[in-house]
C-alpha cells in the first residue's frame, strides 16, 4: 500500500524538523542573541532613573502641550503596545473622512493655521508608529516652546538636530523619533 510506505518518512520528518527548527533552533538563536545583542533582543528599552520608560522603536502617547504629539493611533487605547493594528477604513469611508476633518480642525487650533502634514491627521499601520515627519514636528515646535517657556528657535533647532535623514534621499524618509525628541526636550536647559 502506497500510503503506508510513506507514513514513516513523512511522520519522522515532521517530528524531526519540529524538534530542530521549532525548538533547538529558536532556543540556540535566542541564547546567542541575548548574549550578543541583549539591548535589541529585549526590545530596545530606554530606562530613566532605573525605570523602563518605553522602547526606542515603539511609539508612546503624549497628550500634554509641553511634549511633541505622536501620530493618531487607531488602537482602542492609543499606543497600547500589547496589541497593534490600523484603522482599516477605506478611502470612501465617511467615518474616516469625519475623523480626518476633526483632526485637521484640532491640529490647526493647537498649532495655528497653515498646511496640515498628512502624517499628523492619519493613523499609522501599526498604531505604534514611533516617528513623525519633520514638517509635523516643526509645525508643533512653537506651541511646545511656548508651553515650556523656551525660545521657539531652540526647540526648532532641537528638531533639526534629532532629525533622521533618508539614505541617499531614496531609502527611508526624513523624520523624528517622538520619544527621543521629547527626552531631548526634557534635557534642554531652561532659559
Amino acid at each position, binding site marked *: 500500500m502506497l500510503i503506508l510506505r510513506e507514513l514513516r518518512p513523512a511522520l519522522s520528518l515532521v517530528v524531526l524538523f519540529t524538534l530542530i527548527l521549532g525548538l533547538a533552533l529558536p532556543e540556540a*538563536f535566542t541564547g546567542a542573541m541575548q548574549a550578543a545583542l541583549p539591548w*535589541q533582543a529585549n526590545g530596545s528599552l530606554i530606562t530613566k532613573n532605573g525605570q523602563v520608560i518605553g522602547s526606542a522603536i515603539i511609539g508612546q502617547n503624549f497628550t500634554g502641550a509641553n511634549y511633541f504629539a505622536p501620530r493618531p493611533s487607531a488602537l482602542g487605547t492609543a499606543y497600547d503596545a500589547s496589541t*497593534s493594528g490600523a484603522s482599516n477604513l477605506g478611502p*470612501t469611508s465617511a467615518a474616516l473622512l469625519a475623523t480626518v476633518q476633526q483632526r485637521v480642525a484640532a491640529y490647526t487650533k493647537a498649532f495655528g493655521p497653515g498646511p496640515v502634514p498628512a502624517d499628523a491627521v*492619519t493613523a499609522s499601520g501599526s498604531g505604534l508608529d514611533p516617528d513623525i515627519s519633520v514638517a509635523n514636528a516643526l509645525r508643533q515646535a512653537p506651541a511646545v516652546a511656548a508651553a515650556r517657556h523656551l525660545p521657539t528657535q531652540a526647540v526648532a533647532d532641537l528638531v533639526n538636530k534629532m532629525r533622521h535623514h533618508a539614505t541617499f534621499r531614496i531609502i527611508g524618509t526624513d523624520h523624528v523619533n517622538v520619544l527621543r525628541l521629547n527626552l531631548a526636550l526634557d534635557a534642554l536647559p531652561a532659559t
Partner: protein
Amino acid sequence: MTTQGLLYIALVFALVLGAALPLGRYIAAIFEGRVRFLRPVELGFYRLAGVDETRQMTWQAYAVALLLLSLIHFLLLYAILRLQYYLPFNPQHIAGMSPRLAFNTAASFTTNTNWQAYVPEGQISNGAQMLGLAVHMFLSAAAGIAAAAAVMRAFTASALKSLGNFYVDLTRITLYLLLPISLIAAVLLVVAGCPQSFAPFISAHTLQGGSQTIAIGPAALQEAIKELGTNGGGFFNANSGHPFENPNAWTNLLENWLLLVIGFALPIAFGHMVKDKAQGRALMAAMAIILALGCVGAYAAEATGNPLHIAAGVAQSGGNWEGKEVRFGIPASTTFNVSATGTSTGAVDSFTDSYTPLGGAVPLFLMQLGEVSPGGVGSGFYTVIVFALFSVFVAGLMVGRTPEYLGKKVQEKEIKLAMLGVLILTLFILAGAGFSLVTASGVGSLANAGPHGLTEMLYAWTSATENNGSAFAGISADTPLLDYGLGAAMLFGRFAFMIPVLAIAGSLAAKPKLPESAGTFPTTGPLFIGLLIGVIIILGGLQFMPADTLGPLAEHFLLHAGKTF
C-alpha cells in the same frame, strides 16, 4: 510620484534580480544534489526518518508523499493550537484556540498562505509560534519548492519515469537554502531592533507618566523565514508594519528582498537544470515586467493621495498616509505590499484596506493573475510553467502545429489538466465571495460599506484561494463562515492546483525530448515573453474583470465624484 520613489523601486529590482542569478545557479545545484556542506546532518535525517536517498518517485508517489506529510503536519499544528495553553513558552498564559479558528490557522500555515484570522498578541503563544507556525513556514515553503523541482525535472530528459525524491528535496531545500539565508537575515534583523526574547510582555512607565504594556517575543527568527519562504504570517497583528517586525527602512528593504529573491531565482534554476539559461531568463523577465508595472501603478495611486482628505485641508505633498508608517515612506510601503502580493507572501508593511481604490486594486489583481509575479516559492514557478504551456498552445493554434515546450509535446491531456487548475480556482474565488455577500454573516464581517465592502470580501476569497494570506484587514475573519470557508479555500487552492500540475509534469516527463527544428516556436525571445504576459493577463485576469469593476473601479470613480459610505 518623485524620481526618488521610482529610483527606490529600481533599486529593489536591481538587488533582487542581481542576486537571483547566482542564487538560481545555487538552487539548481541543490536540486541536483551537488551541495553537500551539511552532508552528515542530511544523512542523519535520512537515517532517522527511514528515507532511502536513492529511491526515485513517480509523479503519483511524489504527490502522495507531499500530501501525506502536509496532512500530518496540519494535524500536528491543529493539536498545538488547541493545546497551546498547556505547552511551554506561554508567558502570557494564552488560552487554546477554538476548533474553527485552529482549523483555519492550521490550513493557512500548511498551505503557505498565512492568512491570520487571529490576533497574534492575544491569541497565540510563543510556543505555538515556534513549534507550530515557524516550522510550517520552513516546510510549506520547502514543499512548494520541491514541487517546482519535480516539475523542472520533467523537462530535463526523454522518457523519464520519475520526478525525484520528495523527502530528499524537502530536506535539502530546508538545510541548504532556507536555513542559512534565514539565519543571516535574522541576525541582521536583531541588529536593527527586532526582538528575540522569551520574556513576558514589558511594563513601561511612559515619559508623560502613563503606563504601557509592550508585546514581545522571539520575533526576529520567525520574521526572516516569514519573508524568505513567502509565508507572511506576522508575529504581531500589524505584521511588517509593527516596529518590532520591521524597525526601519533598511529592514524594510531587506524583507522586501527576502520575499522576492527565491521566486525570481527559481526560473534561473530551471534554466540551469534544462541546460538552456535563456529559457529561465525569459520566464524571469515576464514575472519581473508584471511586478514592475504593479509597483509603479500602486505607487502612483498612493502618491496622489485621497482627494476627499486633501479637500478637508490635508497637505497634498504627502500622498495617502492612512495605514502607513512614517519611517518607510510611500514608495517603499507600496513596493512592499505589491511585492508581497506578486509573491504569495501576503506580508504587509502598510494597510491595503486604507489604500486608494486603484492602489488597493493592484495587490488584488496580482493575486488574481494566479500568483506568478514571481509567485510563492515554488508555486509561482509551477504556475508560470502552466501559463507557458498555454502560451505555446496558443502559438501552436495560430500556426497549426503541435505545440512543444522545451522539446516536450504539449497535447490534449496537459492542456485539459492545466485548464482545470486555472478554472477551478476562479470558481472558488467568485462563488465563495458571491455566496458570502448574500449571507447575513458575510455582510456582518465587513468593516466598510459600499463598493469597498465588496472588495474586502473579494480580496479575502482571492487571498485565501491563491494562498497569499494578505487581507483588506478590516474584515472580521473569525466567524464560522469565513473560518471554515476560507480554510477550505486555502487547502483547495494549494492542493487542487498542485496535483494537476504534478500530473502534467509526470505526463511530460515520460515523453521524448524532441530536438529543436526550424518550425519550433522559440520560447526565449521578446515575442514569447510578450505572449506569456498576454496569456497571464487574459487568462488569469480577465475572468475577474466584472467583479473588479464592481469593487475597486466603481469605488475609484465614486471617490472622485466625492461620494462616501
